[in-house]
């Protein structure tokens, strides 16, 4: 593993800088997101920090929702936020969700993209549209449908499982299954979105490269692993990072689906945790400190992913 600087300058220039991603589609969103660790200009560093200053200031004070600013506490809010067992419970729940959601979504959407691209023409457009439809259904609406389908006693999912001889699954009522069930719902809802990005990426791969490798005797598995995946790396990175950033902030789905779960905190995620801190316990200072910790977590995770994915397919 080679040592790389945080500002994105690799000691060995392999020609695959993320600055040099070929443009695809209309937007260059991936470029900017991948450019995140390229924040080497002091200007950028300063004004990245600026907008969060007011949040940061609140997080340093004993700040009640109804009473307003109290005494200055310094980092006390952070300490007490970290001391709270519920914070760690929420972090754990969020982590389970992130791992399942991100992992399965990326694999499913990549497979769906490869599948769609391999189809002949009328099917290609039809399947892309069908896979994309869950993305456009609004989140609360779709969550309400899944809530109905998840009902353990008479829900349709358990009925379908019983048809193939499986035992009923306590989807939303079990403390251990609630987060995977929420993740399953969000995977269904979002895989089409990431699939479209993968499809765009696959189209930017020059056909000559694929043909040349086929001529050299590479089978389809080798073509996927050694040619397509490395060339998809920028989009793979973008999808990984976007999916995790969104997953860490999960709120709506647990708000809707987490109601029937037995243990009240089994579906508590970090954003739900800070929502309750602020609006049930009126501790805005501490809630903002939690939000800040979440931000650092997301940032660290995103940078970690980008560095990891950059090194993964070096060739």
């Amino acid at each position, binding site marked *: 593993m080679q040592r790389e600087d945080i500002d994105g300058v690799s000691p060995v220039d392999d020609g695959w800088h993320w600055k040099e991603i070929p443009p695809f589609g209309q937007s260059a969103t991936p470029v900017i997101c991948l450019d995140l660790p390229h924040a080497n200009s002091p200007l950028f560093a300063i004004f990245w920090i600026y907008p969060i200053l007011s949040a940061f200031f609140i997080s340093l004070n004993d700040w009640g929702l109804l009473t307003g600013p109290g005494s200055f506490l310094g980092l006390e809010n952070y300490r007490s936020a970290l001391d709270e067992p519920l914070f760690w419970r929420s972090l754990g729940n969020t982590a389970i969700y992130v791992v399942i959601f991100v992992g399965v979504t990326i694999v499913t959407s990549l497979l769906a993209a490869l599948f769609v691209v391999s189809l002949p023409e009328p099917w290609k457009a039809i399947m892309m549209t069908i896979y994309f439809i869950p993305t456009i259904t*609004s989140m609360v609406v779709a969550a309400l449908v899944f809530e109905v389908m998840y009902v353990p006693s008479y829900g349709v999912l358990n009925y379908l499982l019983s048809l193939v001889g499986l035992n009923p699954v306590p989807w939303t009522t079990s403390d251990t299954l609630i987060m995977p069930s929420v993740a399953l719902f969000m995977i269904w809802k979002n895989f089409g979105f990431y699939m479209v990005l993968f499809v*765009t990426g696959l189209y930017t791969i020059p056909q000559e490269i694929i043909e040349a490798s086929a001529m050299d005797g590479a089978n389809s598995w080798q073509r996927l692993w050694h040619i397509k995946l490395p060339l998809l790396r920028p989009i793979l990175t973008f999808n990984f990072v976007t999916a995790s950033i969104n997953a860490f902030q999960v709120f709506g789905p647990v708000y809707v689906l987490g109601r029937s779960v037995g243990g009240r905190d089994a579906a508590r995620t970090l954003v739900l945790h*800070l929502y309750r801190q602020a609006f049930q316990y009126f501790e805005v200072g501490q809630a903002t400190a939690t939000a800040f910790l979440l931000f650092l977590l997301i940032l660290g995770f995103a940078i970690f992913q980008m560095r990891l994915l950059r090194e993964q397919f070096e060739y």
Partner: protein
Amino acid sequence: MNRTLQAFRILLAITSAIVTLFPLYWMVATSFKSGQEINTYPPVFWPASVSLNNYGAVLEDLPFGQLMLNSFIVSSVITVSTLFASSLAGYVFEKFKTRLTEFFFWVIISIMMIPFPVIMLPVYLLFRDLKLLNSLQGIIIPGLVGPFAIFLMRQHMKSIPNELLDAARMDGASEFGIFLRIVIPNSIATLTALGIFEFMFYWEDFLWPLLVSQDVEYRTLPVGLAIYRQSYGPMSTNLIMAGAIIALAPILFLFVIGRRNFVQGMT
């Protein structure tokens, strides 16, 4: 061999399509069911008689017209304002670069990196002081212009050649005239995509409207539906599904008319 592969692919396509669309089918089927059919086991896959009773009931029960109108006002005001502000900002940021505009652009891009939960509470406190809570304005204002839209429009403006703008200047067009008559007509595709994206995003936005709207007359559809569900429990499943379909209809309609732009806009 090739034929079996082809048949296998088609089979896979059909199976995956059924799995993907099943929740939507279930939503439609449930919305037609009678009160006895929703909680039976085995579940009823298609109601004995299709009736629109649930639609009528949910429209009466929930102030559905109000929720729908609120969602519509919120989404369209935000969409129109975003399109106007971001195309203007993107144009200036790209075509009139100075150190100062570059500086502001970086400020805006930096804001894009910050997750919403971080700024949510400060904005909430600010809005409380400004008496904007529990009003549609309170839901709308934070969305009026977004960093992502400005960024997207600036990227788009790169595709408009400077020569075109200079030619118009030579012909004596005013700067705002150039923007209106040359830049905007050349940006229709991007603006459509962005517009659909913004509308959809705010149509389903949940956390911020939930914080802002305490009274039912200021709720948007997702918030109204979620709270309705909370207060009525499992007995109202068929009504909820009817409401869900009504909530989904405008977005599906938008998707059908703008499918090409839509996928383009997402990518």
